[in-house]
Structures are given as C-alpha cells and as structure tokens.
C-alpha cells in the first residue's frame, strides 16, 4: 500500500517535473544563457496555451498545432527583443531592475489582453486521450500528464543538440560571456541575441500547448509558475539545458512526495526552498559551469 503510494507519487512527480522543465526551458535560454531576467516567460507560455485552445476548438491537435505556432512565437520573440534592446541595452549598461520592471509590465499587458480576448474563465483543450491512463503494474499514469510530459525530453534534447553542435548554438553559448569576442569573430552579437530570444519564445508555444493538456488554465496561470521556473533554471545551473530536465524532475518528485506523505499545502513551498538552498549551498547549480 505504502509502496504503491510511493511509486505513484514518484511517477506523478516525474511527469509534473518534465512539464516544469518544459515551462522553464525558454527561461534557461533567456535568463540562463543571455542573462535577461525574463519574468514574463510564464505569461508567454500561457499565451501559447491560449493559442493552442483556439486552434484546438477548430479541431487541431494542440501539440501538433504548437509547432507552426512556435514559428510565430519565434518571430514575435525577435520583435520583442528588438524593442527591449532598443529601450534598455542601447542606453548603456543594461540595468536589471529596469529590465525586471519592463518584463513585469509586459506580463500585465499580456494578461490584460488575454482577459479581454478570452475572459477570466478557465480554458481547456479537448483531446481524445484525456481521461485515459496507462497502467504499469501499480503505477497509473494519466495520458493528460504523460503525453505533455514527453514533450520535455524531446525539446531538451533538440535544444541541447542545437546549442552543442551548430555554429549558431556555439555563438549563443558565447554571447553572454563577451560580445566583443563575437564581434572580432565576425559574428553579429545583436543578431545572435535576437535569435536566441526568439528560440526562447518559440519554446513557450510548445510548452503552453503541453500545459493546457495537463489541465484547464486561466490568463493568470503564469503567475504561479514564475518562482518555479526560476528555481528550475538556477537548480539546473545557469545555461545548462539537460540540467533543466533533471532540475524539473527533482522539484516535481519532491513536491509529489511532500504532497503524498506530508501535506499537499506544503507543495508550493518546495520549489522556493530548493531555490534558496541552491543559492546558499551550490550557487552554480547541479550542472552549471563555474562562470
């Protein structure tokens, strides 16, 4: 009985953790690699979720339709980054407080637009597999968690390979370190940052579709995820893409265990406690290179 509870808590934790990783992946790029504190990222994800519901209502599969949507988000991310860098970075030293204020404002604007467009009610998707489960011995995995959870390892692997093996990926890993090193290499650092921010935004379209399969969401659903997303990125180690998956799962499993054997009301504090512990004891995170 207790073993069954444990096994199910762990499996649910792993699945939730994968979804946390998917939510945080764009932040691992914008904050982890570019050092831009994009607290609006979870709201980007919620926007992706609402976009998925719109197309799902027309009969499209939310995850499949999120792929072309990712291209749209990529373009929007580039345009948004251009706006951000015009305002802040070109004034001289980029100021973190000013950037946070901007991203906070952007979150509020996007939330308002979502409320005006869709109302404050919850929205959900309609897919065949919701309600069904995969049963492996004592472990029961609902498809509404399992399918979106699989998105995370796929996205993490694709992004990791891209950053590791492509020329643009090498440049993205270098740009936060020293823009002049890129300039003297004949690479435009401004383009690389726009491109990377576009990729971060594109992940939000896919993660948003995954999120809304898990359960219904409202325009303010991003707020709950901000702390957890930053916890995942910092626990992973700034800029570590595979670390994002490990950190997400670690947080997810811990939350599930605390929920199952402690009290579910403690679960929201788990991510933040782990964030503070990481900052106190291992600021470079699980996989972070000492910078």
């Amino acid at each position, binding site marked *: 009985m207790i073993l069954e509870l444990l096994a199910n808590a762990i499996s649910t934790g792993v699945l939730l953790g994968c979804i946390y990783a998917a939510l945080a992946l764009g932040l691992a790029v914008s904050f982890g690699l570019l050092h831009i504190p994009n607290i609006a990222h979870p709201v980007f994800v919620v926007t992706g979720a609402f976009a998925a519901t719109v197309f799902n209502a027309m009969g499209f599969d939310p995850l499949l339709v999120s792929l072309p949507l990712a291209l749209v988000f990529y373009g929007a991310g580039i345009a948004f980054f251009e706006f951000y860098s015009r305002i802040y970075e070109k004034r001289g030293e980029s100021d973190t407080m000013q950037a946070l204020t901007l991203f906070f404002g952007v979150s509020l604007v996007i939330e308002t637009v979502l409320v005006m467009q869709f109302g404050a009610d919850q929205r959900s998707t309609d897919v065949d597999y919701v309600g069904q489960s995969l049963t492996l011995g004592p472990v029961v995995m609902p498809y509404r968690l399992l399918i979106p959870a699989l998105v995370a390892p796929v996205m993490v692997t694709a992004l990791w390979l891209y950053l590791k093996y492509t*020329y643009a990926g*090498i*440049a993205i*890993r*270098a740009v936060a*370190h*020293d823009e*002049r*090193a*890129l*300039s*003297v*290499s*004949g*690479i*435009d*650092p401004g383009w690389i940052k726009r491109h990377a921010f576009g990729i971060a935004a594109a992940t939000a379209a896919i993660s948003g579709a995954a999120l809304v399969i898990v359960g219904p969401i409202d325009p303010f659903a991003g707020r709950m995820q901000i702390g957890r997303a930053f916890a995942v990125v910092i626990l992973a180690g700034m800029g570590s893409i595979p670390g994002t998956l490990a950190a997400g799962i670690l947080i997810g499993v811990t939350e599930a265990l605390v929920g199952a054997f402690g009290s579910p009301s403690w679960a929201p504090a788990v991510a933040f406690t782990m964030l503070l512990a990481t900052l106190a004891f291992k600021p470079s995170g699980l996989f972070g*290179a000492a*910078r």
Partner: protein
Amino acid sequence: MNRLVIEGLHAGYGAVTVLRDVSIEVREGEFVALLGTNGNGKSTLLNTVLGLVKPTAGRVALEWDGRSVDLTGLAPHAIVREGIAIVPEGRRLVPTLSVTENLLLAGSSPRGRPAIDDNLAYCFDTFPMLKERRAQLAGTMSGGQQQLLAIARALMCAPTVLVIDEPSVGLAPIVVGQVFEAIAHLQETARLTILMAEQSFFQAVDVASRAYVMSHGRIIRTLDRADGAIDHAEIRRAMMGVAAA
C-alpha cells in the same frame, strides 16, 4: 595597389581625443609594425580600424582588387567580414568554449564559412599544439597558448589584412619569441598582410618590413626597410625620447 589605408583619423573616448590626424597605409604582403610605449594610442588606432572605437574624423578604407570598401562607421563584425581580422588586446577568446569551438565560431562567419573545414585544418597544421588541445577550454590554457589560439581564430576569418595588438603582452620572453616566430612564419608562407602594434620593438622590427612610431596619438616617424636596415637605436630614440618628453 592593394592596400589598407587610414587617412586623417581622429578618435577618442567621449571628450578625450586620443588619435590626432593619423594617416598610415599597409600594402599587400607587407608586415607593418606600429611602435609606441604605453598609452600612446596603438590599441585605439587598431580598434578604430576594426570599428570597435568610432572615429570622429577621417576614413579607413580597404582598396583591394580594384574595389574600394569604405570601412569607416561599419560595425566590427561587418569589418571582419570585409577581410580585416584582429588579434585583439586581451585576446578576447571565449574561455568557456573549447579550442575548436573558438575557432569554429570565427570560421562560421559568412566570409570564412565556405572554406571552414580547410581553414580549421590549416590552423591545426600550423599550430599542432592547438590540435592536441582542441577539446580543452580556452580559459584553461596558458597565456602563450591563448595568444596562438587568438591568432588562429583570426585566420579562421579568412583575412585579407591581419591586425595584431601587442602579442607579447604578459608573456615570458621565450614565449614571445615563439609567438613572433609563428607570426613571421605565417607572413612568409601565407603571404599575409599584417599590421602589428608592439612595444617590445627589437623583435617586432626584425620581422617588420616597415614601421610607424606613434606618440601621443600621432605618427611621429616612419621607417622603411627599403631605405636600408631599420636602425634599432634610432627607433629607441624616437620611442623613448618623445615618451620621456
């Protein structure tokens, strides 16, 4: 005549003017040394050529194969793509990338891209040390090794003119000798056109075909090997005399 030409250049930092009316040229196949003691504006001049410092007056142009490209005011990466590569002061490698990744980063810019594999093979042939250490992070290499990596990285940009800023800084004398040998070897074998700033002028002058002496942001002397051997004592007087004044 193929050449990099700098005419009437003025540049500085904010209200501080450093370069005053600097005019120099570097012809195809030449090895030109820019000599001067600390703080006389050598790096400022090279960085202005690369667009890293914006000039307030004057022009920088690359006249090559019947084409004249005005580089004044272009962004640094655009200037590199026109064929001017730099080994900058402080090297500016990416310490968290491996040797190969640092090279590929530069090699992947549009100019180097078509021949990136050949260029990488050439760098590894020329500097076997880099090949042995290709997976090592650049930040963990010694100063001399990093200097050679910075030179190789500039070669990955497939340069028409190679600009080198004080390759001897921070290196032990024996390592300086090795770095200069590598540069001289490159210049001979690849017929590279080189503009190099240096203050340890003995080694620099031995490899250079021409030298400009810089003081307080001006060119105060031009020495040409074609006019006879470049006289060490004379350069020393030119550099030290004005520096002391």
